[in-house]
């Protein structure tokens, strides 16, 4: 659990973060979304004390984050940034081993952990371990950056626009990978982005920031359905809103009894993808199959249209 209580950061006369309070539940993903200059990165960097707040307290599992020396605190918190920040003079394996090495793990444990993470990220430890970062593709570099942040098994992972430099296809893959790994390790993740799409897709809760203030902190569906003010509404994007709302739901939750002609849609696809499929096929309804390929009903344009508006 991360408790941010009345955090303010001023540089001279400029208030960058203004009296922000948030509680982030353990094992969830909180996304801080905002335009550039909104203070979202500064807020993130105050959690691991790369920036010291002017006033306010941040508690990690009940303990003030100033109760240990800053470098010790940072070793216990994962940190991944845009452009990955890999050390160009160290191999992939050495990069991933950075924090375990700082913590003084023994060799075998480090090697086991590096191999585990690389395998998890579909990088063959034998082939990629000894390579240098510049020998990898952008997507691979980003994966190594996240693997490095997770190396010392941190409970909390801070991510500052981690997917910002990736092309759309690799970005989607990286997001899926992160969701899977978050489930596996139960890591609490705080992710900063300017991309509402990413926020809705990744976040258990979303904090919308502007001019140093948190305007709304709520579940994605809530943000989409009931934006707190005009700024949040603009950020959500009125033309995108129904589709984003649909993207939160699974097809299996919108299944209606009955059958339909055409190719079956898998039950765990998003409702947004199902709507696209229906429109493209030019049919009012399509059958739905579960994981085993068994038909479980149908999905209709009419049904989805109803769900594209907040209840």
């Amino acid at each position, binding site marked *: 659990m991360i408790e941010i209580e009345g955090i303010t950061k001023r540089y001279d006369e400029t208030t960058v973060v203004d009296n922000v309070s948030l509680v982030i539940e353990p094992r969830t993903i909180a996304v801080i979304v905002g335009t550039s200059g909104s203070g979202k990165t500064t807020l993130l960097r105050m959690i691991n004390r790369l920036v010291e707040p002017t006033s306010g307290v941040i508690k990690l599992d009940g303990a003030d984050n100033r109760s240990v020396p800053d470098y010790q605190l940072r070793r216990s918190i994962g940190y991944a940034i845009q452009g990955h920040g890999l050390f160009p003079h160290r191999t992939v394996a050495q990069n991933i081993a950075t*924090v375990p090495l700082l913590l003084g793990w023994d060799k075998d444990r480090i090697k086991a952990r590096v191999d585990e993470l690389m395998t998890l990220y579909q990088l063959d430890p034998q082939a990629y371990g000894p390579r240098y970062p510049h020998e990898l593709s952008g997507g691979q570099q980003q994966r190594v950056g996240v693997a490095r942040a997770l190396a010392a098994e941190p409970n909390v992972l801070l991510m500052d626009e981690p997917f910002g430099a990736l092309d759309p296809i690799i970005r989607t893959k990286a997001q899926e990978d992160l969701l899977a790994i978050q489930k596996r390790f139960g890591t609490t993740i705080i992710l900063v982005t300017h991309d509402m799409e990413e926020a809705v897709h990744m976040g258990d809760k979303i904090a919308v920031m502007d001019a140093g203030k948190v305007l709304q902190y709520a579940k994605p569906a809530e943000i989409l359905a009931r934006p707190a003010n005009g700024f949040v509404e603009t950020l959500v994007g009125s033309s995108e809103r129904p589709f984003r709302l649909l993207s939160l739901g699974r097809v299996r939750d919108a299944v209606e009894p009955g059958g339909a002609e055409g190719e079956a849609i898998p039950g765990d696809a998003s409702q947004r993808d199902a709507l696209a499929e229906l429109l493209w096929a030019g049919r009012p309804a399509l059958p739905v199959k579960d994981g085993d390929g068994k038909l479980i009903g149908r999905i209709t344009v009419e049904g989805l249209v109803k769900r594209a508006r907040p209840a």
Partner: protein
Amino acid sequence: MTFRFDKLGIVIAVVVAYAAFAAPFATFRANRIVPGQARSILESLPSALGALLLAIVIVGGIIALLKTPLVLRLAASVIALAALAILIGTAGGFLTPAGNTFARVSPASGFWLLIFAFTLLLADVLTRLNLSPSARVGALVVAALAVGALLVSGSWDSLSILKEYASRADSFWAEGSKHVTLALGSLAAAVVVGLPLGILCHRVEPLRAGVLNVLNIIQTIPSIALFGLLIAPLGWVAAHVPGAAGFGIRGIGTAPAFVALFLYSLLPVVANTVVGLAGVPRAANDAARGMGMTDRQRLFDVEFPLAFPVILTGIRIVLVQNIGLATIAALIGGGGFGVFVFQGVGQTAMDLVLLGAVPTVALAFAAAIILDAVIEMTSTKRRAQPA
């Protein structure tokens, strides 16, 4: 079959043509200070050898002029350089009248131009071959061994520069070691002082402009003026600090030369340290902090290794610059190869000047090649990543 011309080859061919036909190959003088008489290639060598050398340089020039395979160009430059090196010694023996110990034969402009032209060809070929750093050092060692072998074999003993050497063999090596000590010692001192100073300038922003400006100003003081400026303070130190005089510190001599070279060395070392550290990717630095490295760990594990190739470039500049500058130390009794240069100037004996200048140039050249190779070796693994 059509011929295509090589751009650099045109320059080389013009130089070769002028040097082979219009410029004198060797100079003959009745003794070491009278003006010399020019001798062409054919006049300097026994007829068969003269014709052979002429043929070699002409063919070499044609190979350089046309677009030809690299292997052929390499062979042409190496053969021409070897022939020139060996036959200039033969010319010395051929031109010196038997039993005459006063007569001097020295290489003349044509010889030097031919050496220049074919060295240019060789350097061009080596660049185009894209040799690995270790191969370049290997080539340097082979060249040094070849020159060493020619020196030991005595085939150049009839040349004037080696006659000057023969009469000063002991002091040549003593001054040589003094020269190297001055150049390397002042470099070492500059690194010991300059690295921490550079790191300090990087960390403490307000200090940076001030320190670099002061060092810049020092760099612009002419070396002779700097020697003069140092006489008074060092003389005072020698007179007032106990043990200083015993340590060899005096107003003139090695001490001011050392101090001046040290001061000149500081700017490249400090400036390159600052530039190198500033060039460390921001993201890498941020990640290092964010992952919990202390400032010390960040300096030694991230910043320093990444800045190292740039810092090494500064050290290379300093070393080459110091090897050249150390020549001036002789002016104030600091020793080094400059001793021969200034003696030679004083006696209008150009051969003596060359005895000081040629090893200085050779040393600087070798230092540059070796350090370039080291720089490349340290930076290949750290190539900048795409932004």
